[in-house]
């Protein structure tokens, strides 16, 4: 796939001073991944930094990113995941990649991570509830993993299935959502270079409450599209069912692109509160990633396909 450069990218952006000044943090990040290796979970491959994809906005404090979560498998309150996710065992962990592909495979999570080139991606995250964060993920493009199984021409969508384990996920003992949590992307969204599978946060192992050991991050969509604790990724021909859409189809569409022009019945999507800030700020179409992704939806009525 052609990686488009931002039309406003100039030579100055290549060695962005604020990023240059933060270089030690990235080295620190690499060291953090070294910790991953020490824990027998992954090998550090260093961080390749892509200035076009990461935002230069100040990341939200780690404490907030790891204590204010929507992860209903561990409870519906924001503090529940950080309080209850400690019981989740993320090793051993197998991820099945199958469906419309030539080489379906099951990966032990550590082998899967070892096979990828990890990068730091500092992305905005906009929750459908009207708040947002800036999160320094560590991960790899989903497309790199999909390429390994060689999708066929029938693969038009990608379905994500997450862990079903009520013994360790107390929220699953009650049918708030149709467990296990499912998400889906169109294939062109899935192989878009912005779409990553995250395995780390702030240069360290991904905390359980943030979706360990493997979660999806699609920064131009509402946060709930980022399936957590993924166990299966299937290439499929038909648009897959997604958890929130099944619960309330009028409120949560399949696409769920961040769109200030399409109101949610509970929340205006015109503005958002960045965690740590007092005043609300304007929400940007596609969460500010329109220059990279708007073309994917050319000709589509985004008010109907919300």
């Amino acid at each position, binding site marked *: 796939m052609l990686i488009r450069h931002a039309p406003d990218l100039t030579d100055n952006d290549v060695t962005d001073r604020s990023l240059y000044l933060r270089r030690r943090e990235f080295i620190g990040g690499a060291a953090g991944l070294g910790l991953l290796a020490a824990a027998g979970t992954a090998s550090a491959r260093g961080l390749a930094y892509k200035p076009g994809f990461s935002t230069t906005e100040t990341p*939200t404090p780690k404490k907030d990113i790891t204590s204010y979560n929507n992860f209903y498998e561990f409870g519906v309150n924001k*503090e529940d995941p950080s309080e209850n996710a400690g019981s989740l065992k993320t090793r051993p962990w197998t991820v099945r990649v199958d469906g419309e592909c030539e080489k379906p495979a099951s990966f032990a999570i550590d082998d899967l991570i070892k096979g990828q080139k990890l990068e730091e991606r500092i992305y905005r995250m906009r929750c459908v509830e009207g708040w947002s964060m800036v999160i320094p993920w560590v991960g790899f493009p989903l497309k790199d993993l999909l390429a390994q199984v060689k999708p066929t021409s029938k693969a038009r969508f990608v379905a994500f299935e997450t862990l079903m384990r009520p013994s360790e996920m107390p929220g699953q003992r009650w049918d708030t959502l149709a467990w296990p949590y499912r998400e889906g992307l169109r294939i062109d969204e899935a192989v878009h270079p912005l779409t990553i599978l995250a395995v780390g946060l702030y240069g360290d192992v991904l905390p359980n409450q943030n979706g360990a050991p493997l979660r999806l991050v699609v920064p131009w969509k509402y946060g709930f599209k980022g399936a957590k604790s993924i166990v299966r990724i299937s290439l499929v021909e038909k648009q897959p069912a997604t958890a929130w859409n099944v619960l309330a189809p009028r409120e949560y569409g399949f696409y769920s692109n961040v769109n200030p022009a399409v109101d949610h019945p509970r929340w*205006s999507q015109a503005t958002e509160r960045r965690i740590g800030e007092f005043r*609300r700020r304007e929400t940007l179409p596609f969460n500010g990633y329109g220059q990279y992704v708007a073309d994917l939806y050319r000709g589509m009525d985004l008010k109907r396909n919300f």
Partner: protein
Amino acid sequence: MDASVKRAARSKRPSKTRDNLVYAAVWLACFAPLAWLAWRAFSGDLGANPIEVVIRQIGVWGLRLLLVGLAITPAARILKRPRLVRFRRTIGLFAFSYVCLHLLTYVGVDLFFDWGQLWNDILKRPFITLGMAGFVLLVPLAVTSTNGWVIRLGRASWQRLHGLIYLIVPLGVVHYYLLVKADHRPPLVYAAVLAVLLGWRLWDAWQRRRA
């Protein structure tokens, strides 16, 4: 009120000092949630999104106090403590204060007085439409809560007006229910308490008619 209850009330009337102490305790109890919230805010214990916590907590306490207000009459009758009824106005006005504060933090802090957005919220978001309706209906009850107004309106019309509370509290519960995304158990607990309190009144009215 039948004669035996009246007699019981007279005989159990406590001393003035004790009465004042009980009043002070009720006031302190009504202020406690606010004080606790202020303390948490002061010590930085409201988490990543303190504005949301403050709005929700104050709103939930407004709803709880409204339910406590509705519980007083049945409690006074069942426990045969008719003087409990004197706390109805205090509790009701505290409930109104919490509801006002809830609205004020939403409009003033969350929306930062963005009136256009407020109007859109009222028109487009059913939970806000109903919540706002509940607040508007609550205002005349707060205004006419004084003894002077009871006399001015006459007891019968005053009571008819204050019957609005049987509409307002359900609006509050539905307001909460519609806000919740998936796990409706917490608002359903409030709905169940409300159902018991209203159900008791229906049962009571039916008993009286039969008697």
